[in-house]
């Protein structure tokens, strides 16, 4: 056993033997990394300030002390190359987990992700494997300005060879990250900056749903609301308000954006006959377009009206707080869209 591949000792500083029943999302990710690193020496983490500093959103906190600098590597500001480093290491036996500090910087690493990681298995005639995980926080947080408030789902979901996850709860974050690390394919894990410090129930014993499965967060018979990340909470809030008027909205948390769980969506819309996609990103050409288009194709004759989308305004994110809030969907917008859809009758009406 090499010194450099330090195995965890019995420090137990991070992972409580009995995990608490509630965890914050960052803690869930942290525990997932710790579990996988303890179990498999090939797993290592790299990114800016993931080591000594503990990660800008704390996700890697404590791992540096526990596993040493070779398995928890602080990198220079070289997104293109340290993501590509992950690809190279994955080709020869490593299971790297790259953290890109925020999704905004992933624009510098797309060659490594799209041209290299996603294509190497196919281009090599299925002779190479790239078991790489690239994690990145994103979304609109609190007045971070246009260059730090992006959602880049659309850059990844179109790419054959990639899998794209979007966990929104501590339980999902924990399991989906573990599933991703054990997967043989390159996987992009999109995290939302505003969810890291939210708490949620956590049960390490409960069997996780399939990695790409969607989950119904609230059942309902009248309308299907489809969302992921923070927009699930917005939908749940909207569903509460709608329920007060007797409208029962079903809220689906997609959890995965490539593939999407079309069977579940199809089934839901088969019951509700109406759906709304709620997306934080700008509407035009966002991931929501695919969801709407695919679901429409699958369920057209069950639909009583078009699948509409409530999404971010078509602007770079403004710094000013009120404008920023106005640029992303809220529960009121969802409620209004549902009402409008229910009022809308067919063409002749």
């Amino acid at each position, binding site marked *: 056993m090499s010194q450099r591949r330090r195995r965890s000792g019995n420090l137990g500083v991070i992972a409580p033997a009995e995990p608490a029943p509630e965890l914050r999302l960052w803690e869930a990710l942290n525990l997932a990394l710790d579990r996988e690193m303890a179990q498999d020496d090939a797993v290592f983490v790299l990114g800016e300030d993931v080591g000594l500093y503990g990660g800008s959103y704390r996700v890697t906190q404590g791992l540096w002390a526990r596993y040493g600098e070779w398995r928890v590597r602080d990198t220079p500001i070289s997104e293109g190359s340290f993501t590509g480093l992950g690809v190279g290491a994955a080709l020869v036996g490593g299971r790297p987990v790259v953290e890109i500090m925020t999704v905004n910087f992933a624009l510098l690493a797309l060659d490594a992700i799209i041209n290299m990681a996603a294509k190497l298995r196919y281009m090599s005639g299925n002779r190479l494997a790239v078991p790489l995980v690239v994690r990145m926080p994103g979304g609109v947080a609190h007045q971070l*300005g*246009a260059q730090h408030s992006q959602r880049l789902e659309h850059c990844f979901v179109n790419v054959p060879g990639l899998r794209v996850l979007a966990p929104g709860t501590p339980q999902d974050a924990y399991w989906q990250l573990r599933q991703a690390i054990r997967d043989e394919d390159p996987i992009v894990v999109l995290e939302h900056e505003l969810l890291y410090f939210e708490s949620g129930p956590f049960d390490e014993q409960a069997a996780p749903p399939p990695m790409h499965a969607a989950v119904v967060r609230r059942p309902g018979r009248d309308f299907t609301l489809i969302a992921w990340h923070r927009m699930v909470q917005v939908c749940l809030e909207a569903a509460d308000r709608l329920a007060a008027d007797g409208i029962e909205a079903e809220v689906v948390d997609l959890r995965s954006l490539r593939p999407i769980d079309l069977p579940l969506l199809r089934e839901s819309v088969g019951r509700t006959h109406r759906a709304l996609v709620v997306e934080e990103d700008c509407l035009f050409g966002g991931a929501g377009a695919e969801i709407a288009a695919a679901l429409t194709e699958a369920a057209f004759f069950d639909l009583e009206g078009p699948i509409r989308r409530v999404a971010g305004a078509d602007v770079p994110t*403004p710094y000013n707080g009120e404008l920023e809030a106005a640029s992303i969907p809220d529960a009121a917008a969802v409620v209004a869209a549902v009402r409008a859809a229910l009022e809308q009758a067919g063409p002749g009406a």
Partner: protein
Amino acid sequence: MQRSLIRQFYRDMLLARQFEEAAAEQYRQGRIAGFLHLYPGEEAVAVGTLRAADPGDYVVSTYREHVHAMVRGIPPEAVMAELFGRAGGCSRGYGGSMHLFSPEHRFLGGYAIVGETFPVATGVGYWLRMTDSADAVLCYFGDGAVNQGTFHESLNMASLWKLPILFVCENNHYQIGTEIHRHSALAEVHRRACAYGMLGRRVDGMDVLAVYEASREALAQVRSGAGPFLLECETYRYRGHSMADPASYRSAIEVEELRARDPLASLWRKAEAAGWMTADERRAIEAEVTAAVDGAVAFAEQSPPPTELQAGVYARPLDLYRGAP
């Protein structure tokens, strides 16, 4: 060195210091949000380099750019109002702390993605040389930014085409929590110039006079057509990387040692000893600066917010557009 210039330096640096401390206070009070990166400790760099520049020169800076903006002539009011996200801000409240702009001051930003200042400056320099302009560009970046690919790509082009650019490295030895020896194989940033057949030099970035002299010489070279210059200013930031960073990765001793070389205190010591500035003059500057900072905060508080969500995404609406010809 002219007395008036010394006083200017002192005033600039004091304004820088007090403005940033006021911004920190406003942040704590919740009037400023987002990421806020402050400049205390590094004042001599912006002041020394920018006071050596001509009014026609362009400036391209990072997210730690409030001071650069003010030395360049953008009123503190307009900077503070931008931090508040108000319409009176130099970016009308749309940009925020990391995105200050003012074309009439030839201040081109305010970039929050590390490494973007290199290509922007290279583009400006290209245009200047293509149009035979006598102006130059000052391009700022940190020690962490030099490991971004754009540093390399841009410096190669700038040197290849002899573009009039002064590349100013604000080497505060940290890339957030990662000390320079842990992010760079070669910790002496100016020596990287060797890879581009370029001139480079290191200067004490806590000494505004040294920075000023070095910048004047470098800018003269840059303007002469000899090509770009890499000026490394060794400096230190007193605070954490941003308001979110308690900076627990460095020792109290380290901070104390560096604070002992404070650019303001040492300029004052020199100025007093040499008789360049009297205590009265200093007090007058202090009073003036305090008033300016208070005024900036007051202006920002009263400035209305911007109201148009859609304004300025495009020059004209995203309609079908019948083109110009």
